[in-house]
């Protein structure tokens, strides 16, 4: 009987402790009653209260630091889609270097092209107290609720290289002019055709980027604004007849998919004619296209590109790939870091005239001009880039 009584007393204490813990923690400002009836409750409250404190303290800290961060300091999260192409791998290194040089603590994570992974990474950056999160999205339209969570937590969100759609939780986008990029690719293609392939008409094919990336249709639209009039007047002939973005798109920007598509097009349409040119949205796909043409015994067509990847810079230099468009990662990262500086020193987003509607709000866009690279101007373009300049030697 005695034991039973003791136990029921113990149980009551446990229950009381559990209930009081519930009441004791409170929600920051709402905190009204810090009940301290029994020693057990005090201990529990103190212990759990701590977790609560660190958590509620963070937003306050954020504001304070934001006010005084002109001297450097602050936590910046960078969520990248993956590290599988050179520009993203470079971005990872450069963000780390430039953010740390500016005195920030950088949390950089790549999501292996998986949306759920990226959502959780962004959440973990919020948990880690990031004040600004730079997001190069896997799919710009699928981060809606997560970015709104960041906004609620008082975190600035900057889209890097791709538009963040379908959410109010974005403060600005830093990217290279998108429609412009496509126009430049198309102009370089035309220039190459005139230079290398004699008189019109020219047989060409069109490739688009990954459809999940909102930039890809924009590149394509930009390119088609240049090419379509010439297709209509017969200067250019798209032999396969595939001119819709959805027909030309390359899922996930996957080079091997582009190569298969090129193989199929060549086998189906070019058994007795030569291909003169191909619009390619990036360098990896450009090389896949060139390889496919070589395997099919075709002369190398004029192919456009994008990103100035090392291998393509060599190919441009040796004449296998006619052109690429350089979007110097360095410049884009530097622009992003300067925006972060402005935000964390309390000056808000810098002024810009360009905005883009992301489906929910108009987002300020900070655009940088891309540069066409051919064999002729490669040395000038990469004058400040020792790594790539070194590729132009032989």
């Amino acid at each position: 009987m005695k034991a039973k009584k003791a136990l029921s007393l113990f149980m009551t204490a446990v229950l009381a402790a559990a209930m009081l813990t519930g009441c004791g923690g409170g929600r920051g400002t709402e905190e009204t009653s810090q009940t301290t009836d029994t020693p057990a409750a005090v201990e529990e409250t103190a212990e759990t209260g701590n977790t609560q404190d660190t958590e509620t303290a963070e937003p306050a800290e954020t504001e304070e630091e934001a006010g005084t961060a002109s001297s450097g300091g602050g936590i910046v999260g960078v969520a990248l889609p993956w590290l599988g192409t050179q520009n993203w791998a470079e971005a990872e290194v450069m963000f780390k270097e430039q953010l740390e040089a500016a005195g920030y603590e950088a949390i950089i994570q790549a999501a292996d092209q998986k949306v759920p992974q990226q959502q959780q990474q962004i959440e973990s950056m919020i948990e880690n107290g990031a004040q600004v999160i730079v997001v190069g999205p896997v799919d710009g339209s699928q981060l809606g609720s997560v970015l709104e969570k960041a906004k609620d937590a008082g975190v600035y969100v900057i889209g890097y290289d791709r538009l963040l759609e379908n959410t109010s939780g974005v403060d600005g986008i830093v990217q290279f002019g998108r429609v412009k990029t496509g126009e430049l690719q198309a102009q370089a293609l035309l220039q190459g055709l005139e230079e290398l392939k004699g008189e019109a008409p020219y047989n060409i094919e069109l490739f688009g980027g990954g459809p999940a990336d909102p930039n890809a249709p924009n590149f394509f639209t930009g390119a088609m604004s240049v090419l379509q009039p010439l297709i209509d007047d017969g200067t250019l002939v798209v032999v396969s007849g595939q001119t819709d973005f959805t027909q030309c798109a390359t899922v996930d920007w996957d080079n091997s998919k582009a190569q298969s598509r090129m193989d199929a097009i060549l086998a189906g349409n070019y058994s007795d004619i030569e291909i003169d040119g191909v619009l390619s949205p990036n360098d990896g796909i450009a090389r896949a296209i060139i390889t496919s043409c070589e395997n099919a015994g075709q002369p190398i067509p004029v192919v456009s590109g994008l990103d100035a990847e090392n291998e393509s810079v060599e190919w441009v230099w040796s004449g296998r790939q006619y052109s690429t468009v350089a979007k110097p990662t360095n410049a884009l990262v530097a622009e992003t870091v300067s925006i972060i500086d402005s935000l964390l020193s309390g000056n808000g987003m810098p002024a810009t005239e360009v905005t883009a509607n992301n489906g929910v709000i108009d987002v300020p866009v900070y655009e940088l001009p891309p540069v066409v690279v051919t064999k002729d101007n490669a040395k000038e373009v990469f004058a400040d880039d020792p790594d790539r300049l070194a590729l132009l030697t032989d």
Partner: protein
Amino acid sequence: MKYIKKVLGEDLRQYTMVVALAALIIIFNIASGGKMVTSSNFQNLISGNAYVLVLALGMLMVIVIGQIDLSVGSVAGFSSMVMAITARQFNLPWYVAILIALIIGMIAGAWQGFFLSRLGIPGFITTLGGMMIFRGGVIWISNSISVPVPSELKWFGAGYLPEWGPAFTGMNNSTLLLGIIAIAVYAISQIKKFTHSGDVTGKKEEFWPFAVRIGIVTIVVGYATWLFGSGRPGTSFPIPGLILMILIILYYLITERTSFGRHVYAVGGNKSAAELSGVNVKRTYFLTMLNMSVLAAVAGILFVGRSTAAGTADGTSWEMDAIASVFIGGAAVSGGVGTVIATMVGGLVMAVLNNGLMLMGVGADKTQVIKGFVLLAAVAFDVYNKKNRG
């Protein structure tokens, strides 16, 4: 040891994963400087993984009947994409959209169930086909472009319970209410069990293990309630978590308390014996596959709700996470063994690993490696234990 057994029951083995889970949470909390056990992180943990756990519920039953379903990710992606497109095209209200997704899931499940149960094509092949069909379907119908979903769906994937009542509780009162209900239901079921414990054997259970049991559950649930409820105002135990909870209870009851549940285990344990004792094997196969795809549709809804758009890569390799959860939870590859609760613990182990490593800034590459080792270790431990027991 004797005392622990009295509290927890004879089979302590089932608690190893629970202990591992608790250890992981504590280790990560220390290693990340207290960032693991916070209201917002636990809310993230639940809303970010609810879809995998929902898939794991269905996958458990599929694995118990000795099959495997590789198509769940594709079915989830397909049903949510059909939902997104039709809802956008015809401006449908959200509840009709959800209904459409569930119906698509049902049709997909019936399709797979038909090939498995009527034509006898192994589940691996049937669902490998399904995986390609539905993945291709997603890309086809969407023209490879992500489609926004009705904004109300965000509530299902990332929403919170309403705030009401007095502020002095310092918590989200909906969460508090849930916690109290959970404790009360457990206590009542235990009290019932305790008062009837002597009815058959005549040997009344001791009082103290019963009291300690209720005490432990009260503390754990109470703490969880406080953790989830005391976050930033406007947040609570997440809606996807609530949906998951309801499904867990439902599937716990189905697998443990219904004749269909017993049939599932019977078919998985020994198909011919089950058949001879009058179990309709074909029906069991069919319903299990059907159920799996409907749950895949639910998972898809939760995910696109959280993402605010249906994407073309949605569901890619989700089946692997679901399968891993089931096996970490101790299910047998040969079928017939595995429980709902253990599977959920297995799924949470993966989720906590993922979350903890991310908080510590470990990259996706290394996280994959670690998860792979954990899967191997968990299953190896299980196999080793079984061998040693008999």
